């Protein structure tokens, strides 16, 4: 007498069907493999800590206008508000503590630098992108290792 789950065969059949109907797309596999090329070699990670997109209530409270994000590295916090205007995206940022001087590079998903900005004395910066997409910020400060944020779709 078999002790196996009576549904095992059905599940195996279903697996075979789904493997054919909805396999992992080759372009996703290729992207995933190539993603290793994006690993940070010289920069500290500023991890995405908060995203109003994941907090429905917060988004509602703000009227759904902007999207608020917080990234944190060991010695730097980056708050960003993303405003959409048609295709264009404006990032209003705040570095804390404010560095004496910092350059913010917006790296696009294709590896290009989509935009750059300098922060002001208070650590604020503003960048406008022609279109949304997957980006990450790279913060260059004098006397400190570069900081890169997590990837983010805006």
């Amino acid at each position, binding site marked *: 007498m078999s002790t196996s789950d009576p549904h095992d065969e059905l599940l195996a059949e279903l697996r075979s069907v789904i493997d054919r109907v909805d396999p992992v*797309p080759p372009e996703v596999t290729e992207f995933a493999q190539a993603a290793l090329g994006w690993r940070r070699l010289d920069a500290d990670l500023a991890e995405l800590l908060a995203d109003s997109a994941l907090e429905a209530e917060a988004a509602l409270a703000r009227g759904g206008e902007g999207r608020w994000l917080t990234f944190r590295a060991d010695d730097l916090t980056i708050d960003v508000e993303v405003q959409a205007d048609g295709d264009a995206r404006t990032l209003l940022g705040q570095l804390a503590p404010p560095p004496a001087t910092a350059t913010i590079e917006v790296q696009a998903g294709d590896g290009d630098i989509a935009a750059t900005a300098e922060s002001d004395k208070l650590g604020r910066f503003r960048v406008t992108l022609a279109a949304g997409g997957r980006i990450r910020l790279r913060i260059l400060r004098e006397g400190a290792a570069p900081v890169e944020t997590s990837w983010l779709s805006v």
Partner: protein
Amino acid sequence: MRAEPFTTLLTGINNDVFSGIEDVEIWQLELPALRREGQDIFDVTRALRSALGEGYERTVSPNHVLVAAPVSDECPHGSPIQANAIPPFVPNAGVLNAAVAVIDSGYQWDKNWTANPLDAMCQQLEVKPGMHPTPGGWVNDDDDVPSVAGVYLDALSGHANFVAGLIAQRIAQPNITIWNHNGSFAAGPGHSLPTEAAVCRSLLDSQSNALTKVTYVGFAFATLDDHVSNLWDIPFKSSIDGIGHPVVAPAGNQGSANKRYPAALNAKYPGQYPNVFGVGSLDDTAGHAISTFSNRGDWVACSTVGENVFSTFLDIDMPPEEEPTKGPHDFASNELMRAAARGDQAAWNAIVERFQGLVWATARAHRLSHADAADVAQTTWLRLVEHLDRIHDAERLGGWLATTARRECLRYIRLNGRELPSDEADTFEAPADDSFELGLLAKERDAALWRSFRKLSERCQALLRLLVSQDEPSYDEISAALDMPVGAIGPTRMRCLEKLRGFATVDPAFQGGAA
């Protein structure tokens, strides 16, 4: 002095592991003179010259490897010494135009010395013994404990990782496959002759056109009072001078700043041995901090991972003739993670292969369209790349990926203003237009099963999709992917499969197509 392969020098080794390494000459540097009290130091230097200089053909063949590597076998993990931090590990900073064979070994050739012959001779030799055996065990040479026995020399202690680390830093694109074997001779990471043999063989198998050569030279001797003796110029200058290819000089494991041969020559003759790299040890699990036991100082040229490395240790036994397996169930994913974090594409691809079904199914289980699911899956993989150096417990990697994919789904759904999948069980939803999918299924029975699947509740579809996303789905991973309590998975699975069977059973095509 012997010029025979390890296999003839050591017993208890499975000779098979050396098969295929025909062109590699492996030398063991043996100093039998040290075994005898009062031995004339010139016997020793003659032996060294014989091994490294005269009689050693300098025209190294492509696969010629000299191993002469006595270093301490045991790592006493001494207290950290702060002086003179060693240069950090710099991956992919290739500057050398050569390929390198990785040779490592792990044999401590005589632990049983109990006589006390050698303190006086160490004075004569102007060296300090690497370690002393004491009645209480082995102590390192910086402990202020009088030695009760002689010089501890162990030939060929395991440091392939040092060589591998040097490659990572100095060789631009070393087409290297790391092999491993944790065989009868294993005594811990990097301590395995079969390991070295396998590594060696893998290099011979590689398609690299570049010459494959490296010299690994370490000695158990530390400098006496940090003085780099002229005595050691004789063998080293006559042997290392002119070699040209990389010489790996392990810094040693005493946690000491006291210079150690042959890297000590770097301090004595700055710039004269640019190919001789004193290599210190880093701990791969401690943010690449200097291993507490690693020697360090200006005489050390660079550092590499000396603890917990992919290159020399896998948590598995494998037959010597097999490649390390990177399949789903028997690969040492901690090592893969670390290798991927260092940029090892093959290791990364193995991780992708292992988990891509889970990531994809998680996205699809959240009712994302093909294009949106692809976007979420891509972001998820980028997240893992971001965190490669922060995830140390590979057993949780699947759960981490599933959680990350789910969160990316939620982010996507919220940003795009779609409602979340309903948690209400078994609510019926009219199937979408599946004509494309059905077109892929030639058999009537398969098409019927797909139609039945699409009639299931979202929750059931999501769970079943996860259950078939990989060979042995873990409930932890499924729980993370769907935010479903682990305890609910079994009963839900049963109920969903019963429903699926119910729908399928009433479909004539399902019955008609049955075998």
